[in-house]
């Protein structure tokens, strides 16, 4: 078992950074100090994972990525949107993608 101290919570804008998270066999087994919602977020982080798919058909990640690229490149005005629960590093990639596509870019704080 690995105990991670001072873990930053990812749930809300508070980013409480004093969580203790226990991991066993690559599964999160226990979360201490978090609020109820934060604890659930960690405990359920590894469940209910979707499968990569195109129009409901299961595919590999590579194929899904290729189809995503094709659809976006085709579009005249694609929208890149969301970005609320991911890292700044991913957000930066999203910005460049929107720039490359010549599309629109927005996040959840515009309304």
């Amino acid at each position: 078992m690995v105990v991670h101290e001072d873990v930053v919570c990812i749930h809300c804008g508070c980013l409480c950074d004093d969580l203790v998270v226990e991991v066993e066999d690559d599964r999160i087994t226990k979360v201490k100090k978090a609020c109820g919602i934060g604890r659930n977020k960690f405990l359920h982080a590894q469940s209910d994972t979707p499968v990569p798919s195109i129009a409901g058909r299961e595919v590999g990640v590579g194929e899904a990525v290729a189809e995503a690229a094709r659809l976006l490149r085709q579009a005249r005005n694609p929208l890149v949107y969301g970005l609320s629960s991911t890292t700044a590093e991913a957000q930066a990639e999203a910005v460049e993608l929107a720039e490359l596509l010549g599309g629109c870019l927005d996040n959840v704080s515009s309304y």
Partner: protein
Amino acid sequence: MIARQQVGLATCTLGEVKNRADLVIFWGCNPRESHQRHQARYSASVKGQFIPEGRKGRRIVAIDVRPTSTTAAADQFIQVEPGSTFETATLLRALVAGKRIGIEEDAKVGGVPLHVWRELAEAIKAADYGVILFGLGVTHDRGHDLNVEELGALIREVNDYTRFYGLPMRGHGNVTGSNQVMGWQTGYPIAVNFNRGYPRYNPGEFSVLGLLAREEVDAAIIIATDPGAHLPGDSVAALQAIPTIYLEPHVNTTTGWATVVIPVAPAGVAAEGTFYRMDNVPLRVRKLVDSPFPSDEEVLRSIKETILHA
């Protein structure tokens, strides 16, 4: 976000609230439900360097349209009518500055008697270090960003008397980071359009609700956000009418209909990187476990590279 482009915003980090704030006004927010440890860590019961008594050392005021657990725990609850944030903030500006107002002494503003607002204005000026923590009840009330603009003007003007700041109670994990990253890479925090090859900005025109309502986009890629939970039904319908690519770690309603679903490693659990706290303090979230799937960052980079090399 838009409001600070007109008046700016005087703000502070959460540690300043903790260490110094002797007056805390929760306006249109209910942290006891939505940001559950906020009061204990930063804003109410926490003991600060110059507020050693913690909760007893602060006066807590809650302004909301309905009673909540946050308003119940406040020293004072001012229950206002929906749609009155702007009027209220306007009145407080005038009262703080001692301006002549055009209503009678027995009038109500926002459904609240004038004398209550007078007392609040005096309490604001008498505080050593006051803060307004505002939430969706302000930003989603009639007037939207103008409410924040008016609160911003109030906060600014109170600084002629004492230190006084405002902090938005930002919601999901790293929404603050999306404003910051867009800010330094495009110059604008939201609502950017690259049709001309350079960033242009116009909320309303280039923000998600307007774009979808006017059917101005013909494909979408959504990252780390559930539109089913965030957007109104007609926006979701507009997304369903176009090819939509969805990067998401968990099954939800959107994974059920998105054209392309790409599962990702959840950020801060199976992928590391930077999150920005609601007060713009950046922290590093960690990779605690492995995921069978790549991170958002990796997927987005793959898509970008596929397009670049097509």
